[in-house]
């Protein structure tokens, strides 16, 4: 193999794929990136067997070939090279990759590309097309609600459902649920429902750049995998096996009071309360007081810690329904408020021990359910 690439492209490509490298694996080749010539471009791939990322960069190819080299070494080296041409030459006999740029020449010991696990090469004909900006926002609004506890793998994933023109993403960690829908530009050929690791989706949201072609998604039959393609990269992820909780069941159908507040004010109140709440239980109380004839409604947010002290903030609100005192984990409140873009949010509640629902006001494509906390008196 003998190719020439631009340092800038190589560095960018490596930063994209390196997130799938698994440096501590028992399989040494998984700590490497695959470098291969591929129809006039250079293909870079990395995989940790759960997720694989491939990226193509422009290259001048003099001689075809492929190898794998330690990702860390290679990326560190490339990042120090000048912004100029880099030539890569493989000695196939010793699997040593010579990396030359300007006056610097380096030999990196590699492992035969044969040992690198093959990544799927799916057919994107029937792919579902998702607008990049929509996709990024969906992931942003949903993935944080997935669990990080490996004891329940299903909850570490995001349920992705496509039915006709509608795509839905849902994630839940046992205490809260985030659901976001969007409309596809063209309807999908057949319905899809899969649990995709939240990490893979977040990674893809990072790789995809706005304004690009749509993201293409395929689920090759019987493989238990999903493959996404963005402009010049592909990401493959294992699907999570199992049954996702029936989230429709979890979403309350009605409420007893609906509280409208400014998103920014509520977020600020939560951040302040969290300073005191985080010492103990993370609990904040929300005292929702109804609007009288002359008086506007308000929500009093308070937190209390044995050690640090206490905090209390009053936020103006329009309250439609009965007054209520309810407690939530403030981290959950903050995290959802941080992903809501509309100036106002609605909090729908029923009772101190019933779930609360948070929705952006003026958009009906997102909702978030948070289970309350009980504080023994």
């Amino acid at each position, binding site marked *: 193999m003998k190719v020439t690439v631009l340092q800038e492209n190589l560095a960018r490509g490596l930063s994209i794929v390196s997130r799938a490298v698994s440096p501590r694996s028992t399989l040494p080749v998984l700590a490497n990136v695959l470098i291969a010539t591929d129809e006039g471009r250079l293909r870079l791939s990395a995989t940790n067997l759960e997720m694989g990322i491939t990226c193509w960069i422009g290259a001048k190819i003099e001689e075809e070939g492929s190898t794998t080299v330690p990702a860390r070494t290679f990326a560190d080296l490339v990042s120090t090279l000048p912004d100029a041409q880099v030539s890569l030459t493989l000695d196939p006999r010793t699997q040593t990759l010579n990396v030359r740029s300007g006056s610097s020449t380096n030999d990196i010991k590699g492992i035969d590309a044969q040992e690198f696990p093959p990544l799927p090469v799916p057919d994107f004909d029937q792919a579902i097309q998702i607008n990049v900006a929509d996709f990024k926002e969906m992931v942003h609004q949903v993935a944080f609600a997935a669990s990080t*506890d490996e004891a329940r793998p299903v909850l570490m994933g995001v349920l992705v459902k496509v039915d006709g023109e509608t795509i839905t993403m849902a994630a839940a960690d046992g205490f809260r649920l985030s659901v976001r829908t969007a409309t596809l530009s063209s309807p999908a050929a057949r319905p899809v429902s899969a649990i995709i690791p939240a990490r893979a989706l977040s990674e893809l949201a990072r790789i995809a750049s706005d304004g690009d072609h749509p993201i293409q998604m395929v689920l090759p039959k019987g493989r238990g995998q999903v493959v996404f393609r963005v402009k010049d990269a592909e990401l493959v992820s294992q699907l999570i096996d199992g049954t996702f909780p029936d989230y429709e069941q979890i979403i309350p159908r009605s409420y007893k009071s609906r509280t409208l507040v400014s998103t920014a004010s509520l977020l600020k109140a939560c951040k302040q309360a969290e300073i005191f709440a985080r010492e103990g239980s993370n609990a904040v109380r929300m005292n929702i007081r109804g609007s009288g004839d002359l008086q506007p409604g308000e929500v009093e947010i308070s937190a209390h810690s044995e050690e640090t002290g206490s905090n209390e903030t009053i936020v103006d609100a329009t309250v439609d329904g009965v007054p209520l005192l309810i407690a939530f984990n403030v981290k959950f409140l903050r995290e959802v408020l941080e992903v809501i873009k509309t100036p106002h949010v609605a909090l729908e509640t029923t009772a101190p021990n019933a779930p609360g629902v948070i929705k952006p006001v003026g958009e009906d494509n997102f909702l978030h359910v948070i289970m309350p*906390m*009980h504080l023994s*008196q």
Partner: protein
Amino acid sequence: MPIRLLAPEVASQIAAGEVVERPASVVKELVENALDASAKNIQVIVQDAGRRLIEVADDGSGIPAEELPLAVERHATSKLASAADLFRVATLGFRGEALASIGSVSRLTLTSRVKEAPTGARIRVEGGRPGAVEVVGAPVGTVVRVEDLFYNVPARLKFLKQDVTERRAIDNLLARYALAYPHVRFRLTDGKTVSLQTTGDGDRRAILAALYGVEVAKEMLEVLAEEDDLVLNGYISPAALTRSNRREMTLFINGRWVADTALTQAILQAYHTLLMVGRYPLTALFLQIEPEEVDVNVHPAKAEVRFRNQDRVFSFVQRSVRRALLAYSPVPTLPQPQNLWRSVHSVPSVENNPLPGGALPAAGLDWTIGHDSRVEPEAHIGPVLATTPETVASSPFPARASLVSLPLLRLIGQIGATYLIAEGPDGLYLIDQHAAHERILFEKLMAQHAQQRIPAQSLLTPVVVTLPPAGAAVIADQLPVLSRFGFEVEPFGPNSFQIRAMPVLFGNADPAAALRALVEDFEEDETPLQTEIEARVAARVCKRLAVKAGQVLTPEEQRALLTDLENCESPRTCPHGRPTMIHLSVELLERQFGRKGAR
């Protein structure tokens, strides 16, 4: 063989003593009789922990009507003819004592029918006096009904443990026989709800799951070894799955449940170096050996045996278990740190849980820290004791003692994804991240508990968990305690519970795992003292939910752990009394590097 009276000289050779000590011993005798009668189905009904009723029904061979009076007589058995037979007992029973003994301390009804007879027959024994045999309709097999156990022995009644404990002993016993006889269908009920049921399809792993939960059952390793006339099969836990006592080390020899033989030792030796001090594996092992090779007539309750060639059996068991173990788990190559350094405290050994620091000599090295004047006082003063769960409970929040508290530590880093290294004004600290986190969670939980402010986080959807019968009984009894800890748990069918909320402290850990953790180590003789139970509940939950060894922590997480540990009342031991840290004092380092006194 018909039932007949043993010749006096044979009877006198039989290890005599109390056959019936508690309800569970009645169940054991009756179940063994059913097994001896080749039953395929054994149904046990126990009411009021066996005080009111124990009934064992089987579909075995039955007893002919004319032999019923003999069956309940002392030294009458169908299983032994001569003294020589005593040396090759192939049945579980052989003394002809059980029914007579049970009949003398209860109201016993024995109903039975053999295949050949058109009807069944029944005999009643009350306080040892048998009545007349009556003809009754009955299916083939035997039903023994024992009512009002110990009604005529008030002293015995007084010594019975709490109902929970007695019931648990019965649950345990039956589960173990079910394991040993996977081809027999067992069913245990209290007349209404079923607490144990097996299919009799020979699948031992399914029974293990019922006994220990599905996760544990999945992890158990299979043992299968044969050598000459010796066959060993069953399951053992991998070295990482252990308990704090040997109660879960089940051993059957020729279908007989035996306790506490040298073979337990052989099994433990097989785990040598793989287990932490004071930890014991879970095992369910079944040894087959020629009846001539084993003497079962040594213990009145038949709980012990003696081998003709003890060494041979011992070594066979040890090798077989070791082999099974190594086939799955690699031996750690690092030497254990406690061999090199003594821990900060020479902690007094806690009940059957000797601690590394206290138990081991300093491995011949002069690296003990006993000479270190800064640390010495801490090693022998109260605070160490105050950290065992029992005493923490009686005074959960001792005034902050400067002796136990930690100096400010500067984090250096994490090693082996298991320990943190930190520097203090007085030397180097090696901190076990799991033990340290356990301590932190424990103190936070107990502090919130003392303020009655343990907030419960409701779950999006209730989680249903099924526990082994013994564990389910414990949870059912402790629901109020659990609710004070922020667990909202409701019974949900036999042995199952629905978790609606869990303590916030545990983040997004699996609620089912948290509940299981509460009962997995359960001691049979749990003290009824409420405060102790609460401390134990807390200690157990914390153990399950603390970060594990092998978990890589970010520098922020490491620092937070250290800060939290500094804030603990008793930072130097985990809630179970093991050390959280090893301290290498400046003096020690100087001595070891020859800097001190060398000039």
